[in-house]
């Protein structure tokens, strides 16, 4: 991975291509351009500071960077930097968030373990809502474009990000994907993260909310086994509830565990297969999208929605 902008040289693929560095973002996403694959041995370091200058008749110990000398200590200095390790990701996330807000796009980051039914739930949602609102999808997986193909079969625009060896999407990848996908103003954008309940919790993508999907085939203690993710999510979709009669899954216990790690989390019980509970989820989407459009000039909203 490139250590300057966070690009994985040779690993990350947006629709099978390496993200280009010769581009202009429509959103004001400025990238520090730089050379990949440099070996750090070329001269961007200044000449090493001479710590001790034996001028004739004058021993000067104060010429090092620290300007002082303490016995037994070399001339090093302390730099207080107090910088967040995720600062770079967070600044890309803020740029994405600002661009999404300007466009009136309501973006959700869907997170779950592999096999929770994220893609099926998304396909059903898109099929049911595509005539009512504008929808777009960014798909994240380690490999293959199968999920994006499933999404495109519904008629909604989708773009696939392959993270290669990476275990999560980051804000920089999403910025590139937005640039290629160009979601329409006033749409709902679903970002389906890599199936993983650990790493995506820490990486803000610029979304309005994280939505965690947990299926009842997984065990009711997932929220306390992976507390970071359930803490970071605003909504929990408890999926595959049509299978409850065949399982030993304690719904009440699961909800209690989820509230322990996140007292304010909202929980909806759904089945993407039978459609049970899906209306509540659609209502949640509609209301949030309306909230997002509040304050935008009504003529603009009408034009955006094609009304």
């Amino acid at each position, binding site marked *: *991975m490139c*250590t*300057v902008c*966070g690009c994985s040289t040779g690993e990350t693929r947006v629709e099978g291509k390496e993200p280009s560095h010769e581009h202009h973002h429509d959103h004001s996403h400025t990238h520090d351009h730089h050379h990949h694959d440099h*070996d*750090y*041995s070329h001269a*961007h*370091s*200044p000449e*090493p*500071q001479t710590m001790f200058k034996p001028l004739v008749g004058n021993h000067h110990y104060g010429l*090092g*960077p620290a300007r002082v000398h303490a016995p037994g200590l*070399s*001339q*090093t*200095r*302390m*730099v*207080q*930097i*107090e*910088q*967040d*390790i*995720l*600062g*770079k*990701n967070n600044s890309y996330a803020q740029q994405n968030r600002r661009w999404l807000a300007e466009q009136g796009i309501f973006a959700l980051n869907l997170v779950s373990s592999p096999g929770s039914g994220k893609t099926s739930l998304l396909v059903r949602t898109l099929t049911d809502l595509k005539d009512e609102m504008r929808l777009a999808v960014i798909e994240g997986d380690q490999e293959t474009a199968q999920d994006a193909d499933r999404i495109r079969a519904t008629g909604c625009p989708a773009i696939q990000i392959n993270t290669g060896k*990476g*275990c*999560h999407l*980051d804000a920089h990848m999403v910025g590139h994907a937005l640039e290629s996908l160009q979601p329409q103003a006033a749409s709902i954008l679903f970002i389906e993260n890599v199936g993983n309940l*650990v*790493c995506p*919790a*820490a*990486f803000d993508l610029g979304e309005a909310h994280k939505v965690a999907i947990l299926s009842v085939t997984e065990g009711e203690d997932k*929220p*306390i086994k992976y*507390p*970071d993710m359930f*803490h970071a999510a605003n909504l929990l979709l408890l999926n595959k509830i049509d299978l409850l009669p065949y399982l030993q899954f304690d719904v009440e216990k699961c909800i209690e*565990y989820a*509230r*322990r*790690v*996140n*007292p304010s989390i909202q929980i909806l019980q759904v089945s993407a297969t039978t459609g049970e509970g899906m209306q509540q989820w659609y209502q949640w989407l509609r209301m949030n999208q309306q909230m997002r459009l509040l304050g935008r000039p009504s003529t603009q909203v009408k034009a955006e929605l094609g009304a």
Partner: protein
Amino acid sequence: MHEMSLAEGVLQILETESAKQGFSQVKTIWLEIGALAGVEVSALEFAFDVVRRGTLAGNAQLVIIHLPAQAWCLSCGQIVEIRQRYDACPICGGYQLQVSSGDEMRIKELEVE
């Protein structure tokens, strides 16, 4: 495995700062990691050892400062220390805790030359 991305994030900050503050070697890095940061410290140390090779931090020592997690208990109104997000309040046993710190992940200071 996001520790590898974090280690690269650390290195990226060092390289930016070296240009800004004019240093060419990093000798020690003090990292603050909160108890709820979701960081496996040994994995981070391993990852950092891999990414720093041949860089300005090639010989740097990584010092981890563990920060405790604190929460405010709505039921008893006290600030308490917790170890996990699902911990009960150690005073009243309730779960109405507002986590107030513990997810820090920060480079605090550097020793450079």
